């Protein structure tokens, strides 16, 4: 299962998406303002795999990523959606 988060860390929606993913032991894919979660120490110890849309990171000037965050293109995002049994979101 994969949870898509498009809202930034300072919003209730973004926090809700991250919590839900943690509770469901799902992986997350960060897009739009959600990519600010990919900065260091924003993920509050999230254990799943974290993907972040490269184009949205680049637009916002985010370069210093948390260790383990995997940047992907729309290509990769499409593969994730096709491979996972369920896609939830976008928060």
């Amino acid at each position, binding site marked *: 299962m994969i949870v898509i988060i*498009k*809202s*930034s860390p*300072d919003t209730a929606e973004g926090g809700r998406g991250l919590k839900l993913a943690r509770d469901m032991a799902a992986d997350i894919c960060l897009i*739009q*303002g959600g990519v*600010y979660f990919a*900065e260091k120490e924003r993920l509050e110890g999230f254990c799943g795999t974290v993907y972040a849309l490269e*184009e*949205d990171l*680049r*637009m*916002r*000037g*985010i*370069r210093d990523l948390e260790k383990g965050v995997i940047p992907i293109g729309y290509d990769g995002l499409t593969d994730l959606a096709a491979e996972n049994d369920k896609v939830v979101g976008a928060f």
Partner: protein
Amino acid sequence: MKNVAIILRRPPYGDINAAEAVRHAMGGASDDLSVSLILMDAGVLILMAGQDVSGTGFTNLGEALTDCLDMGVSVYAERQSMRQHRLDSRDIPERVRQVNGYEIAEIIKVSDTTMIF
């Protein structure tokens, strides 16, 4: 000369607010208004260096902010919001003035109009 305060609270690109704030700031400046653009909350993220919109079709809002400064817009960033969003004063344009809540209140107080994005 009329004073306009434009407050930006939303981060760039995710919605239209940052682009609108900058657009109206430029519009005001080119119409000889005295414009104060106040960045608060996630609005300070427009100051992040190295925004690269190549291949996206989007306007680079970091560069648009520099254009605002060139046009005479006074840009202010709230210190607490900068800390919250981990922005260092070394990372932002020199001409952006860092202010506290009290100073922002003073700017709004003397403005004829306040717009919030």
